[in-house]
């Protein structure tokens, strides 16, 4: 209970049953409802895995200095960049959705063919290059091509 800022869902649930006053609970857990900053999240992820950002960036096919700017929070990513990072981290479908959520981007959606190909590639741990080949094969926009100007 010491650190309210990193509540897991289970801890939040436990709190819900323990706390009798809703107002009190709201004030206590307000911090945990806010999403962490994207740069903080990916930096923490690297620390947790004991892997330097450099290695993750190498696997994303992103320009190196741009990649570091994402980790330091000086730039914010587009949706495609978030997906490239998901490949860099070797994430599965669920972890990638979480990453998109934290970056406040639209989630991978079953009605979007390109998203489905990406889900398939993430699930089978394709490298980013293999995934680009698969996209190309189906005549779909490659990762990095689907960016809005943001």
């Amino acid at each position: 209970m010491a650190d309210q800022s990193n509540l897991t869902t289970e801890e939040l649930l436990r709190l819900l049953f323990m706390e009798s006053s809703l107002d009190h609970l709201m004030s206590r857990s307000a911090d945990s409802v806010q999403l962490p900053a994207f740069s903080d999240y990916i930096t923490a992820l690297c620390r947790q895995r004991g892997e330097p950002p450099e290695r993750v960036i190498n696997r994303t096919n992103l320009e190196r200095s741009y990649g570091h700017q994402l980790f330091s929070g000086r730039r914010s990513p587009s949706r495609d960049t978030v997906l490239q990072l998901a490949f860099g981290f070797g994430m599965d479908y669920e972890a990638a959705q979480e990453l998109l959520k934290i970056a406040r981007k639209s989630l991978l959606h079953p009605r979007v063919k390109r998203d489905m190909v990406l889900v398939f590639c993430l699930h089978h741990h394709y490298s980013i290059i293999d995934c680009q080949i698969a996209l190309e094969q189906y005549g779909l926009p490659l990762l990095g091509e689907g960016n809005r100007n943001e």
Partner: protein
Amino acid sequence: MNDRKDGLHLIEAAFSQYGYPPDFLADYDQLECLSGRRGRETFLVRARADGALAVAKCYDRAVLDLDPAAPAPAEGLDHPGLPRFRGKYHSDRYLCVVRDYVEGTALSDRVRETAMTQEEIVAVCCKLCDVLSYLHSRPQPVIHRDIKPENVILTPAGGVCLIDFDIARTFKPEAEADTLFFGTKGYAPPEQYGFAQTDARTDIYSLGVLLRYLLTGSVRENKNIRLYRPLEKIIARCTAFAPEKRYPNAGAVKKALLAANPRSQLLRKGGLVLGIAALCAVVMLAGWKVYQAATYSPFHSDAIPAVLNDEERVADAVAYMKDKYGTDLFDSPDDLATVGLLRRTLIEVYGLDRDYVYAFQPDGLPQESGDYFMPWGWEDSQNARRDTVVYAAVKVHDPAIVADWSSLKDDTGEYPGSRVAVEFAQETGILTGANRPYDITAGELALIFANADRVFASAETE
């Protein structure tokens, strides 16, 4: 690897069964699903022909019972404040309407970044009124019905664009009430819940809620937040329960907004002041002598340089005292002024008798007398208060003014003569500029004396 290929083929097969119009899929690549409510999906797409981004709304015809032959919502619209219509596609299953993707920041994101000024808010709402006027004045009026911060885009060029024509509909005068509820809770007016058919005044209601949200941060009325009155009135009229009580059209809202805009109010007030001033000038010219007789005052503050900042005022006063009296008493203008400095000023600068300045009334309530200049028995080392210095400055020139305190009944322990002096100083402008209420600096002491000099000198020359 074959398994994987099979997997990808599976996607292909599943996707073809979704039943999106084939020509839509041929023209556009789907990039993201922006929202996926039942029967209505919104996609960010990219045109294969020119790579332009666009937004496609795909309506499931089984859910929404749409006639593909009918014009798509807002199909023939052409206004800089609306996304351009690109095309319409249909299959047995879907109707897809494609419009330009609008680059910019959603108003909902903008309000979270930094606080918007009242003027910015009014400007955005005025531009929205222009868009709504255009929509509502079509031969078949188009009602947007989902005006909210998420659907208002501020473009990099400074424009305002109203997006998401999901539920926009043309108004059919014969229909009595809407059967389907669309819209966003909080922004939707009562009739959108089925009280009556929605018309242009539906959008006016939502515009009023939007204005309230931008000004107060809440879509609901909050009695604790005080709003600028003219804007509050506009919100109240926009959001009246009965559509008849609302503004009749968006043009009327814009007119009211422009009139309520703080800047235009200022201009209008300025104009009013100018008008009154002109009228006064005429009246005064005619009855100048009468006016002069009625309002005559020997003192006016024209002699005091007013368009200076505080440091400049003090510097000006110190220079004035030096020029006029050749004194170096105020050479350290930042030091706190003491009673001793005040006494030396009276003796050295104004040539008062030393005994008269130092004598004081030994007991009882201090009062004005020809026996002592300051009735208080203060030490030289005490700090001089502003009110005391003002008293001295006025008394130097006209002891009768501070002696006339008979109308003051009380006392609060404060010598009434100094209160009369301060009142007089405020009326004549002696206290213009850098004066703290209590302890003052040597420079401020010089300022009060210099101002008094000028005021009395200008009164003599009248």
